[in-house]
């Protein structure tokens, strides 16, 4: 046993854990007070690190002043502005919308950073106390590491004090579960929410600066920095997104696990080192989910339900016919890469259709649909080819056997059921986070390992187009028509599902899982079924997507893409995920907009990609105002135009109990928090230990 190495790794691990703890507690603070999971937390940290660079390095201000400017003003201000402009409107929005808005914010902020600090220049932050170290035995510890650990400890003490001894802190803890209770007791959740977002952004910023300047070696790289802060989400899950002490424990586990896996396997297994080690935090996120106790079944919420007319079978068949006709016309008129781009958009549209039953009907979220698509493409490439070269070999049923499509559906559905198992019994947010972790893990450990689609080289990622014998799909035009047929058929199927018993059950589940259970239905089973079905459809779409270029690359099935699972989810929701037209639009948006920006960029001789990112962010953020998505918004306005009425805001009606039903009986408005209510709050928050303090 090399004790020195162990000590060194432990110190590194604890320092890293400290940064995670700082970032994660920021996430917990914003979540507990606003009830909204901030996907953009990592991006805020990244943005603040760059701002710090601007002030400290570019403008050359002293360290203390730079820190004061960034952490004392810019970060809290940014957090507060985000809360005031975006988050506040989301209070009654469904989970999918809140995730899309914050995820779009993340992408938008990454775009902003790229515009302001183009990555063609390399930047670095000086470490704090450069060169100053102390030694423990023969192990050298830098002042920066000590500072980081010290800050985390200080923060732990301060937060504990805030949440247990100040009225503001106690109220903050209470807001998430019982906003009305707090309002009733004179606390003002609105103000608290703004405060907590300011605090959260500050903590994200601190973590970002420490990461970018520290010995971890992330440096000022936009995507990497954003992703590393996301590692902290796993720590927050150990604390069930509410307990600060458990979050710190989680951070410690993740920091140490990461350093030990890095430190102890260098020589043994190259695959493990390069593909598994980077995703250790995400594997631990799964562990955290497995450890999470099943909460009480959720009842109905004050969610704005959007009523969408479900087309009849006749209508859906007619429109599918129109789509196929349109596909045929496009195939005749368009050629070259434009044609394949449209085809890919249609294939992505099919993948987005897989989200309609899952997200549009059941209200569940998946951030790994491109992973399932990749699994589908993988199945197609191995089943329907006559002899593949790399990994897993090939079944060799024959080039383009339609059995490949079946295999794509079945394999993706099976994997979907498997990964949903640990998270499906939990609330929707946890399923969303589990799928994100799964997307990142699979991308690193499966697709990019080289065994599946090669490492970018030629034939490894070959995916056949299906071959039905009588009509050939070998021309790109014919393939586009074929994709329109499949899209139409899947759309007809999804709508038929909606009109039938299973579709009703899905909507019922979204509206009130508790009621479904009291009627004799198992919410978990239904969720598992729909998740698996959705994964299968995504797999089918993926197999067809691969056929467009007859080749795929690992990056296409990653979380960030392009196209990527995140964008697929966001644009499906932006298009309108409760309709089948939404995915059609979303798929084209995802593929055509970048092409347009590239074209415009070459005309203007500048790189417009970051602006496309910002635009994407704005599109997602705009959803906060029209939670039904573009299709619903447009059709509502169109119908209003036709009938000569203004669109009524009341198209969306509150679907929930009157506020009175949520209130604790007999509490006079504005009274101070009484002991019995403190106890009740503690019970709501699962925090028994604090009850004693409330009594003092």
């Amino acid at each position: 046993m090399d004790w020195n190495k162990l000590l060194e790794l432990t110190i590194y691990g604890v320092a890293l854990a400290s940064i995670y703890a700082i970032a994660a507690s920021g996430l917990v603070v914003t979540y507990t007070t606003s009830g909204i999971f901030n996907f953009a937390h990592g991006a805020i940290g990244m943005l603040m690190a760059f701002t710090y660079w601007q002030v400290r390095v570019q403008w050359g201000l002293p360290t203390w002043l730079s820190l004061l400017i960034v952490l004392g003003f810019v970060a809290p201000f940014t957090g507060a502005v985000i809360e005031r402009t975006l988050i506040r409107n989301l209070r009654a929005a469904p989970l999918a919308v809140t995730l899309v808005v914050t995820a779009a914010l993340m992408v938008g902020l990454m775009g902003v950073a790229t515009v302001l600090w183009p990555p063609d220049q390399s930047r670095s932050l000086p470490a704090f106390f450069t060169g100053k170290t102390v030694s423990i035995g023969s192990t050298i510890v830098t002042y920066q590491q000590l500072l980081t650990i010290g800050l985390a400890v200080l923060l732990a003490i301060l937060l504990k004090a805030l949440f247990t001894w100040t009225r503001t802190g106690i109220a903050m803890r209470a807001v998430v579960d019982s906003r009305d209770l707090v309002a009733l007791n004179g606390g003002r959740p609105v103000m608290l929410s703004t405060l907590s977002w300011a605090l959260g952004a500050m903590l994200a910023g601190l973590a970002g600066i420490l990461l970018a300047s520290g010995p971890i070696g992330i440096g000022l790289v936009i995507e990497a920095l954003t992703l590393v802060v996301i590692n902290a989400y796993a720590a927050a899950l150990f604390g069930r997104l509410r307990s600060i002490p458990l979050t710190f424990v989680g951070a410690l586990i993740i920091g140490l696990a990461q350093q030990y896996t890095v430190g102890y396997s260098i020589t043994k297994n190259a695959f493990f080192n390069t593909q598994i080690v980077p995703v250790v935090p995400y594997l631990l996120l799964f562990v955290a989910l497995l450890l999470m106790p099943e909460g009480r079944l959720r009842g109905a919420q004050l969610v704005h339900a959007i009523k969408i007319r479900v087309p009849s079978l006749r209508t859906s068949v007619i429109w599918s016919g129109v789509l196929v006709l349109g596909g045929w016309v496009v195939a005749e008129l368009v050629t070259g890469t434009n044609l394949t781009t449209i085809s890919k958009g249609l294939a992505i549209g099919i993948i987005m259709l897989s989200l309609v039953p899952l997200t549009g009907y059941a209200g569940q979220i998946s951030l790994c649909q491109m992973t399932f698509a990749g699994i589908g493409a993988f199945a197609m490439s191995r089943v329907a080819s006559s002899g593949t070269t790399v990994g897993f070999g090939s079944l060799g049923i024959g080039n383009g056997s339609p059995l490949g499509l079946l295999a794509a559906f079945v394999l993706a559905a099976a994997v979907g059921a498997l990964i949903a198992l640990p998270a499906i019994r939990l609330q929707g947010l946890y399923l969303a986070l589990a799928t994100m972790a799964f997307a990142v893990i699979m991308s690193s450990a499966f697709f990019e390992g080289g065994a599946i689609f090669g490492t970018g080289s030629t034939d490894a990622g070959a995916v056949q187009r299906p071959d039905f014998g009588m009509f050939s799909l070998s021309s790109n035009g014919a393939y586009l028509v074929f994709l329109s047929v499949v899209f139409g058929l899947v759309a007809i199927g999804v709508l038929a599902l909606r009109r039938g018993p299973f579709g009703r059950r899905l909507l019922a589940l979204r509206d009130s899982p508790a009621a479904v259970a009291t009627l004799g239905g198992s919410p978990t089973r239904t969720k598992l079924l729909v998740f698996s079905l959705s994964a299968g459809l995504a797999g089918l779409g993926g197999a067809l997507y691969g056929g467009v270029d007859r080749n795929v690359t690992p990056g296409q099935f990653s979380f960030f893409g392009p196209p990527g699972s995140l964008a697929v989810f966001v644009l499906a929701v932006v298009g309108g995920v409760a309709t089948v037209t939404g995915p059609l639009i979303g798929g084209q948006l995802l593929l055509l907009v970048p092409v347009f920006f590239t074209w415009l960029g070459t005309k203007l001789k500048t790189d417009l990609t970051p602006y496309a990112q910002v635009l994407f962010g704005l599109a997602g953020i705009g959803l906060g105002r029209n939670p039904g998505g573009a299709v619903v918004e447009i059709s509502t306005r169109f119908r209003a135009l036709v009938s000569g009425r203004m669109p009524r805001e009341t198209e969306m009606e509150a679907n929930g109990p009157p506020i009175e039903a949520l209130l604790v009986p007999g509490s006079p408005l504005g009274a101070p928090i009484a002991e019995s209510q403190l106890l009740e709050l503690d019970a709501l928050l699962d925090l028994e230990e604090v009850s004693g303090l409330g009594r003092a």
Partner: protein
Amino acid sequence: MAALEVDDVAVTFGGLAALTSVDLVAEAGAVTGLIGPNGAGKTTLFNVICGLQRARRGRVQLDGRDVTGARTFNRARLGLARTFQRLEVFGSLTTRENLLVAAEMQRNGRDPHAVAQEILEEVGLTEYADAHVDSIPTGLARLVELGRALATDPKVLLLDEPSSGLDESETTAFGELLLRLAERGLAVLLVEHDVELVMRVCSQIYVLDFGEIIASGPPDSIRRSSAVQAAYLGTPVAAHASGNGSAS
């Protein structure tokens, strides 16, 4: 053997005792009342019976079968159904679809559409059959919940303040509906603030106060009980019971 039997159930929330040792029996073919001031623990008891709330102690039996550890949907399959005080309708579905969802979960071989139609008529909602439930008045939405519970063809029916939001004539009709259901052999457990309605339809009444059963018996004896009057009708005890917020 009673259709529903609750023994020695206790629930605490943090340090707050919501129920302390509650015993209760609901017989088939009768409406049993459960009354008590705000915050007495009535809804909590319902949640324990149907498995939405874990009890710290005690047993729940359906038709002599111990279901204490069973999951909510398994209890439902044994014939337990309920409505909610805080509405839990499927707001984005129509009234008919709400009933269909319930009927389709049953494995009794009956045509769900026929069941739904029958119940629409029985609870008097035919007029609202195709309206989205989140746009109909609260009182009627409570009837949707009742209909939905009935569509599961239950043996035991728990109703949590079903008549609030109904006007006087609707309440009268509702009382008659309850009696018809009991005649059919259902065990109905009714939580209700409308004491007149409770006295009219219940054969047995339990009074819950501060998580304890302080009295039980037929309507007449309950009406005369001084403990009940003290707990229920604005005496100092009641003021204390509902005065959580002002205690310091």
